[in-house]
Structures are given as C-alpha cells and as structure tokens.
C-alpha cells in the first residue's frame, strides 16, 4: 500500500511533466494523469470563454466535448500539435461556431415549416438526414429495400451477389455515404469506395436481364431504387457520397 505522501509526490510529478510526457502517462491508463490533463487545460478554456464573452452553459459543453475528443485522439497516437493549448482553444471555438450554425439552420427550418409546409414534408424538413437515419437504427437499415418488388429483385439477382454485397446495396439505397459504408465494412475510404463502385457496375450490368422478368409496377419501384445507385457525378452536386 502506498502512503498519502507518495500519492502527493506522484501528483506533483505529473504536474511537472511536459504535455507530450503527460499524454504518454495517459496512454498507460493512469487515472491521475487524465485528471492532470483536465486540470491543465480546462480552466484555460473556461477563462478564454469568459474573455471572449461566450455563454457559460454552451461553452462548457464545447469545452468538455473538445477535451474528451482531443484526449482520445492523442492517446490513440493521432498527430499532436506542438502548441496543445492553442489547438484546444481553436478547436473549442470552431465547435462553438459549428453549434451556432446548426442552431441557425434549425431555426430556419422551423420557420419554413411554420410558414405553410404540412405533414411529412414539414417533419422531414425539421429533422436532419442523420437524425432520420438514426431513428431507423442500424437493424432497420435497408428494410424498405427488402419489401415487395425489391424483394423479388433481390431474389432474381439470385446467387450472383453475396449477403455482404446485398447489405452494401441496401445501405447505398438508404443514402448512406461511401465513407460510412467503408467504416462499417472495416475498410479504408478509398478501398471501400472502389469496392462499392465495382459492385454498382456489376449490378448495373445485371439489371436489364432482371428487369425483363418483372411487371411494369415492379419495374418502376426497382428503377426508383436504382436511381440511388447512380454514380455521384450524374446526380445533383448536393449529394453526399
């Protein structure tokens, strides 16, 4: 058992560590080193917020978010800036600005919805794409792609696609960006993007044979789905892929 004196000394030793060495101690899972990181940078960020006249509650949220994200990134071996304090101030300021932009965008949507849009359109205009997607939950992704005509489309594609390829197609159909699909597959963005492009090309080649075997209504539904698989440049510039 260590004495209280020894604890005090180790705490003082942590205080004298350089920022780089402190991150090293955090990587070893020393709880006191994490608190030292917090004590070293949080009061600075709070005082900076006071100086530039930030709202306390909002600013504290930004500070905690930035400190937690930066600590994890640096502990995991991410690039560390030489001037960590300066970096954290900038990061917290950018985070605050991003929150302000989001709030303005939301307010604009509320105003537009209150001005006449009704029903589902109004609801969708109030929710971000990400929150709509989150509300489905991962288990539900691609559910609409497995219904009715699309179910038949999948079965006609038959064994030419693997389960994983079908799941990628379902995600594409739901409008998930390539980057997220690649992350889910555990691939780098570039590898994931190439794999998705090859898969789309294969499906496009198979489509004419499959569509010939479907009736008009089914074909229309499948074509709606296939529109989402078109390459990015042939769609609007706003599409996120």
């Amino acid at each position, binding site marked *: 058992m260590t004495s209280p004196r020894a604890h005090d000394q180790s*705490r003082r030793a942590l205080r004298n560590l350089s920022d780089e060495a402190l991150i090293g101690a955090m990587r070893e*899972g020393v*709880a006191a080193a994490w608190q030292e990181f917090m004590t070293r940078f949080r009061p*600075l960020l709070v005082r900076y917020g006071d100086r530039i006249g930030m709202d306390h509650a909002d600013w504290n949220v930004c500070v905690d978010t930035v400190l937690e*994200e930066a600590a994890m990134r640096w502990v995991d071996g991410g690039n560390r800036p030489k001037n960590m304090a300066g970096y954290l101030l900038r990061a917290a300021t950018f985070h605050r600005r991003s929150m302000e932009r989001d709030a303005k965008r939301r307010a604009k949507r509320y105003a537009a919805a209150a001005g006449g849009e009704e029903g589902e359109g109004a609801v969708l205009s109030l929710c971000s794409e990400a929150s709509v997607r989150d509300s489905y939950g991962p288990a539900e992704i691609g559910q609409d792609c497995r219904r009715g005509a699309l179910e038949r489309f999948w079965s006609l594609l038959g064994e030419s696609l693997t389960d994983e390829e079908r799941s990628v197609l379902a995600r594409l159909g739901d409008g998930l960006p390539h980057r997220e699909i690649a992350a889910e597959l555990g691939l780098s963005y570039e590898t994931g993007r190439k794999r998705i492009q090859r898969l789309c090309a294969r499906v496009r080649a198979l489509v004419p044979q499959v569509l010939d075997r479907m009736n008009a209504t089914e074909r229309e539904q499948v074509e709606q789905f296939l529109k989402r698989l078109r390459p990015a440049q042939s769609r609007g510039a706003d599409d996120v892929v």
Partner: protein
Amino acid sequence: MSSDRSAAEALLREIDPELLAELLGRELTRDPDHPIWSDERFLFWLASQAREEYERTNRLSDTEFRRCGAAFMARAHARKLRVAHGGPAVHVREPVSAREQGNPRPVRAGPVPMIELGIAAGVGRELWDEPVSSWVEMPPHMPPGEYVALKIVGNSMAPLMHTGDTVLVRIGADIRCDTVIVARHPDDGYVCKRVRRLTRNVIELSSLEPGRPIIRIPRTAESIVGTVILVWCRHRD
C-alpha cells in the same frame, strides 16, 4: 535558486493580462481569432493563472483527484466508442406479459430483461437458456430495435465498464469499427469487447486495458449477439 523562481512566479502573478499581451507585442482583445490566442508563451502564462484560481476554489484530495480522472477517462472512451454512459441501472418489477414466457426474449420497448450470465466468462452456456434475473428500466428515446441487458464480469474494458456493471445490448449482427459488441467466442463463451478491425471473414476484438490479447472470431451472424449502446456503471454517480 528556488527563492528566485518563486519570486519570479510571484511577480508574474501580479502582471495584468493586458500588460503581458502588450509586452509580447500583442493586444488583448475579445476577438477569438486574434493572434494572441495562439501565442504559446501567453497561453502558458494564462493556463497557469487559470489553474491556480481553479485549484484555490476546488481543492481535491488525492483520492478525489484520481476518481475525477477515472471519470473523465470513462467519458472520453464512451464518446469515442459511441456508448452512452449512465449511473446505476433502475430495476423494475417483472412485467405481467413476461410471466408466461419461459426463456428470456429480447424486447422492443418497456422493461428490459437482464440476464446474469457473466459475459466475459460464460463458458459453454447459451445466452438464451439462462433465466431472467431481473428487469431494468429502458432509458427514453432509444432507437428502435430489440434489447437485452447483460451483466459484466471482469475489468478488461475498464475504465468504460467494470465487474458488476450492466450493459444494454441492441441485438443484431450489424456492427462497425470502434464500437463495443457482445460476441460469442468459440472457446471462451460470451465476450464484451471493442471492435478493432473488421475484415470480410474475421472480427478483431480488443480490450481497453493495455496488454490484453487481441481476440479474432469468425464474422458470422451466429457469433455476434449485438452492439452495446449503454453502460449502467455503478462507479458513476
């Protein structure tokens, strides 16, 4: 030497921030984009001033200091691994509809069944053969899905979870990197680990505690129970 240093520190304490900024050839403004806010010397001085004031008003004992550090570490890990981190689980009475069922079933809403199978050490037992030990309250605003609550055994995922904590698992084989999942290890029963890497056929799982081995399991629907989305941690107030 030390008296010189303390004298210098005492002198520094008396310097006004406006004056120090002026000495550094800058002006102290409320503009967040002004270069003074990236001057390393000024920030070092301001950080030490702010820290002194903070420590004067928040005197933490060594134990409290470590406890706060552990809490910060847990929050940072939870943010990265997209796991909500809550206080102790709220246990509720068994719902009437569940009394006639035999084995536990994952639920979509209402109280969640908790299974007391040690998910880091349940060798050779089937998750769904275990009796429901208690029921816990489902937190509000959860995304749709099927849920089950499980008890953690072992500290390999500290500081995020500890022995005795309860985790809320969303059932499904749809997993992604940098999340925490409950998986079935072919030899060691059920494990709760971080997804380190995914390949076409293999899932690489790692612990949060340094020095633990990496586990590789086949990427099949049978080997994945689901994704941990919330930890009810007894260590958190």
